[in-house]
């Protein structure tokens, strides 16, 4: 870390007191103003003993087919090609009832893996090697049949209302461990399907909003936090300019002694300066060893891009970022895994993410980080066990799908819940997206019913009036 300016004691105190530089002055309730007067991003004591300190969410945008990957259903082979009645979610939303559909067997061969004997298909050979490291939840279900509503639900717990993202809630609940970095980061987010609302703070104070690193479509190698570098000044020129700014601001403060608002602005510059000099390093993977780069598939296709994103996520976690979302998706209306007509294309996506995801798990494990990091892998919904329109793809399936969780406080190597014999609807130990949110918060030491924010005259929470903590998956 560069320290271009020796900090005076006064500065040190100020910046520590003001954290990420936020001070709410207007438009906040008295309660929040009191909170903001201290440091809104200081690491906070959770409601109870946390099992994990941070989250990495690997978002598989578009909806991975669980029946082709983790949810093994022998019935699909037996009944392949048969026309059977299903309560198809899209048909139900549109007409109120289901329809006849042609059962389609998995396209990839399933095998039992590891000590635990969990079923994982050949779609994800690398992740399969880690079957003993994660807990597979087969009984997920959620709201929203189309990508937009379901993606917003995944991130904000609502299909349509303007609500904070789960990362913002976590940031609000726990603060950050490194004030020189944002507490909530999203790598290569998509502009589509809700775009910035998926990492927005909504009514929470802006300090809790997600900070984007790059955007979908921009190579990870070129991605950074915006405005972190000055395009026209050299370091020494900008340093001189910064000294002038500091002096001018001090003079303005002298004219208005004790003015907290001016002090807050001044502190935000100190922090910005430190971020500018620290954050690039947290994102820079160039000093990683060759074996690490190779493990993530960096420098080879098709894994280079997602490998970089995953490795960056590990570095940010190490540096103290609380919530890191790694996005595999794009900006289209049929994002990434959305194979309505061409299931084999799943393999193309799998080849890009499988190795890096496995590497991330191995890397976190070898560094001892997995113990207090939650890794969450999954999409906004799953896919149907039958062919859409009797074709060669699968439609969205919000009624039953699989995600996996690994790391802090989670029982590894187990499978929880089940879908019906086809993998269509969750039936046993169902876990709603609200439940998953509640469980993740719980692992972080936060009670989802107590993590509230007062807005519009009432308390809001991530899980609205729902959510059960799934204790059975906890170690």
């Amino acid at each position: 870390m560069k320290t271009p300016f020796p900090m005076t004691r006064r500065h040190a105190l100020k910046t520590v007191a003001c954290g990420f530089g936020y001070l709410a002055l207007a438009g906040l309730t008295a309660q929040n103003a009191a909170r903001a007067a201290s440091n809104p991003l200081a690491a906070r004591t959770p409601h109870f003993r946390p099992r994990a300190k941070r989250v990495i969410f690997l978002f598989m945008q578009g909806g991975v087919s669980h029946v082709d990957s983790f949810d093994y259903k022998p019935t699909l082979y037996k009944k392949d090609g048969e026309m059977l009645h299903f309560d198809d979610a899209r048909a139900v939303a549109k007409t109120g009832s289901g329809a006849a559909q042609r059962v389609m067997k998995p396209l990839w061969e399933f095998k039992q893996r590891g000590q635990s004997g969990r079923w994982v298909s050949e779609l994800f050979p690398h992740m399969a090697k880690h079957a003993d490291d994660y807990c597979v939840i087969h009984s997920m279900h959620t709201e929203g049949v189309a990508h937009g509503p379901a993606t917003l639900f995944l991130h904000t717990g609502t299909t349509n209302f303007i609500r904070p993202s789960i990362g913002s809630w976590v940031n609000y609940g726990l603060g950050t461990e490194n004030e020189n970095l944002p507490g909530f980061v999203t790598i290569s987010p998509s502009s589509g399907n809700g775009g910035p609302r998926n990492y927005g703070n909504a009514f929470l104070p802006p300090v809790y909003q997600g900070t984007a690193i790059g955007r979908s479509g921009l190579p990870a190698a070129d991605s950074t936090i915006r405005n972190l570098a000055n395009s026209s000044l050299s370091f020494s020129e900008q340093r001189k300019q910064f000294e002038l700014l500091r002096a001018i601001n001090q003079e303005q403060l002298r004219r208005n002694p004790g003015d907290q608002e001016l002090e807050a602005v001044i502190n935000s510059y100190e922090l910005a300066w430190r971020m500018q000099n620290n954050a690039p390093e947290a994102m820079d993977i160039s000093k990683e060893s060759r074996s690490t780069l190779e493990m993530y598939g960096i420098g080879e296709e098709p894994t280079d891009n997602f490998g970089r994103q995953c490795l960056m996520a590990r570095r940010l976690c190490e540096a103290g970022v609380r919530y890191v979302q790694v996005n595999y998706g794009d900006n289209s209306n049929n994002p990434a895994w959305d194979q309505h007509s061409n299931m084999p294309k799943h393999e193309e996506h799998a080849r890009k993410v499988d190795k890096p995801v496995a590497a991330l798990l191995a890397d976190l494990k070898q560094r001892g980080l997995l113990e207090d990091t939650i890794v969450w892998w999954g999409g906004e919904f799953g896919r149907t066990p039958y062919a859409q329109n009797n074709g060669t793809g699968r439609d969205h399936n919000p009624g039953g799908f699989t995600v996996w969780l690994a790391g802090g406080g989670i029982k590894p190597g187990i499978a929880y819940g089940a879908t019906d014999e086809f993998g269509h609807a969750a039936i046993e130990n169902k876990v709603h997206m609200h439940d998953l949110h509640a469980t993740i918060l719980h692992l972080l030491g936060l009670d989802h019913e107590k993590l509230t924010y007062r807005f519009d005259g009432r308390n809001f929470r991530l899980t609205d009036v729902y959510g059960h903590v799934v204790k059975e998956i906890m170690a």
Partner: protein
Amino acid sequence: MMPAIGFAADDGIEFFEKQVRPILIERCYECHSQEKKIKGGLRLDTKAGWEQGGDSGPAIVPGNPDASLAIKAIRYTDHDLQMPPKTKLSDTEIETLTQWVKRGAPDPRVQAGGTASGKAGMTVEEGRNFWAFKPAAKPAAPTVKDKSWPQTDLDRFILSKLEERKMRPAPAADRATLIRRAYFDLIGLPPTPEQVDAFVKDKRKDAFERVVDELLASPHFGERWGRHWLDVARFAESSGGGRTLLFKDAWRFRDYVIEAFNNDMPFAQFVREQIAGDLLPHRDAAERRRQLIATGFLALGPTNYEEQDKGMLRMDIVDEQLDVIGKGFLGMTIACARCHDHKFDPIPTRDYYAMAGILRSTRTLFNYTDNVARWIDTPLPLDPEAERVMQEHEQKISALNKQIAEAKAREKKASGTVAKATDMMVGMPIAAESLPGVVVDDSRAKVVGDWKKSQFSKSYIGDGYLHDQKTGKGEKTLTFMPPVAKTGRYEVRLAYITGGDRADNVPVTIFHADGEETVRVNQRDTPPIGGRFISLGQYRFEANGEGYVLISNEGTSGFVVVDAVQFIPVQELAKAQSGAANEVAQKAAAEVKRMEAELKQLREQGPDRPQAMSVRDDDTISDTQIHIRGSIRNLGQTVPRGFLSVAMQGPQALLPTAQSGRKELADWIASPENPLAARVYVNRVWAWLFGAGLVRTTENFGTTGEAPSHPELLDYLALRFIEEGGSSKRLIREIMLSRAYQLASISDGKKAWAQSSAADPENRLFWRQNRRRMEAEQLRDTILAISGALNLSQRGGLTIAGAGKIDANSTEAQSIEYGYQFTDTLRSVYTPAFRNKRLELFEVFDFGDINAPVGVRNASTVAPQALFLMNHPFVLEQAEVAASRALASGSRTESALVDLAYRTALGRLPTPRERDLAMRFLDCKENERQDAEARQKTLAQFYQTLFASADFRHIN
């Protein structure tokens, strides 16, 4: 637990105790008991609990399992009512509970506690006495001890409170500060140094009054004050949310609001036009246009058009409209009552659905069936002469369209009858590559089921064709995926071999970027295009998208035969058509081509009929049922349409059966007898001039909001406002000419200040002005004004580059938003207001979220703001432009340049120490390199430093 005492052995109690109670305890109590939780208002730990039931009504009908909600829930037959939610009961458990209900649901648990009801909030009757809903009585201005201080009645209200608390008001702001404040407040731009000088020197008594009047008359007044209202109206130019759609015509609403403020439209009219403009009488086309455009207020919310459940989508839209009407005009969070009676405010769920009935009888969506829904574009009437020209033009277009259709029919018929024509070589195989566009041969289709390959008829494309052998109906499909390299519209054509034994209703589904479409093809007819193809229509496909064409044999009786699918970019169609065979067809095709060119020219040269995003009354006008817990599948009692009962002065008037009731709703809100809307509005105006309202929660006048600091002043201003005909300009003028408005905002260092500050640190009593943060638009406009780059001449119109000829209801426009480059230098009120892609400066400076009504902007201080001002190219560029402008102004010495920079950027001269700092920075740089370029670069850095300085962001 209650023991089963006093019941005979055969009354079913033993059955209950042994078999039923354990299931209830194990599987139901977690969410439905006094000890744990009472979800949905339902208790199952007492008999009275299930008898009374929860929000959906009684849970059990003794003796009738099929009519019992609880049994329905455990059977999992209803998608929306499945209990327990996590895991279905076993079949044995379900059978046990069903038997129990069948036997009359014997239940000994009669002595345990009561039921779940019990409401904490205020009743409607109690609510009528709450300050916000009470009728306003005009209070007399209080008498004050210091008679010399007040300039207006308003001042007496302020001073009287201060005297009560033995506080002294702050001294007046100095003149340079005051004029800067007035400029920013009224037009959102800084005064030039010359304007400051002129005012400081103007010793006339009414000098400030003159400035205020001049600024109120400026066209920039509407740009500043319209922006305030646009915040409340959550104005945006795209839908955001799921699949964002571009609101191509939303700018008309923005311009309407700006104009309304510039013309000082009476408030009542402003309310009526936005809620019910389409239902109002009008004298001429201009008035009608304005009224229709105004209803955009209801249409431009963050609607999730992609929601598949259109019933839910409708209620979500109604909810959003109630939210913006409630917060915007009534200061009420009505939307809380969607699922249950308002927990705190006197708003019963009945009231919500009474108002919802009005909006549910209003149509906001074009239809209720589109896969991705769309709003309503209403063509606008023009002034008589323009209308005459327009109608002539439209008639020409429709006549031409008719001729084109006729010519196309001739062409189709002709090419159909010459199926053996040579240029499509019917009767012989041809290569796919020889045809225009992209041809996907059947050999490249994804095949489901047993299709038979054939080359029996030689008239095929590529490598033979496929047929379903007339067997396995409903089991076979073929999927054709277009290798789309470029996003755009394509004509999709199917090639097949015709015959008398073919199916006459082959379902072909086109899954395109905007939805899906199923076309039925009669394969007994000769393919009309060259004897080989039939057109399936034109659709948009995205590059590397998931579009496809799926042919099924479902529901068919004859042979289904498929040869190929062709995708032709529409712009290449003309080329494709030239391939049509005989003379008649060619002649017709040539005519079509000529007329289409003519049509294109006509469209380009002729006038465009303007359209507005608007709402209208729906075809069916009806009252709405209460949606229990907000669910569209759990309907309760029907509620007659009406307004907010707690805020009504008299009984609810009956609403018309032939109209939605929006007009009556607007009349009620705008009525001089209704004090609520006027209170909410004058409070907003106060907040926009002081940085905080008399009620600081500008959107919440309910019990969870804050009470007014000066209730009498609020009523005084509200009644004055009504008396003055709802004139915003007069209200603003009255407030600005008060002494209270003109007070200093920062300390003079005197003892009195310290005392007042200690007594009222939050300035609830307005003993001083509030120093305010520059809002995002002021920040941008000010930087542009200083650099001289601000373009003040274009005021209004469509400002989204590239959106001119886009179909407003197409998703094509989406890419405009995602890839938008913000390059204009118009005032910020005209910056394209996309919900998913904001101008970065807006996003960073508390103007990122435009999804919900906002009365007072947040004022955060975060590091990304500092990074923006330090490093963003916009700031760097504008600082350079400002520096070169300063150098060109003729200021010779560095000292003069420093003075000029301070005066233009901060509205004041530098202090001696500031000048010293600046001189050292500029000199030290100059020593390094003496050339003019270096001088300009250094000066640019200096300007940028001033933009970044703490004072720049504040208005004193």
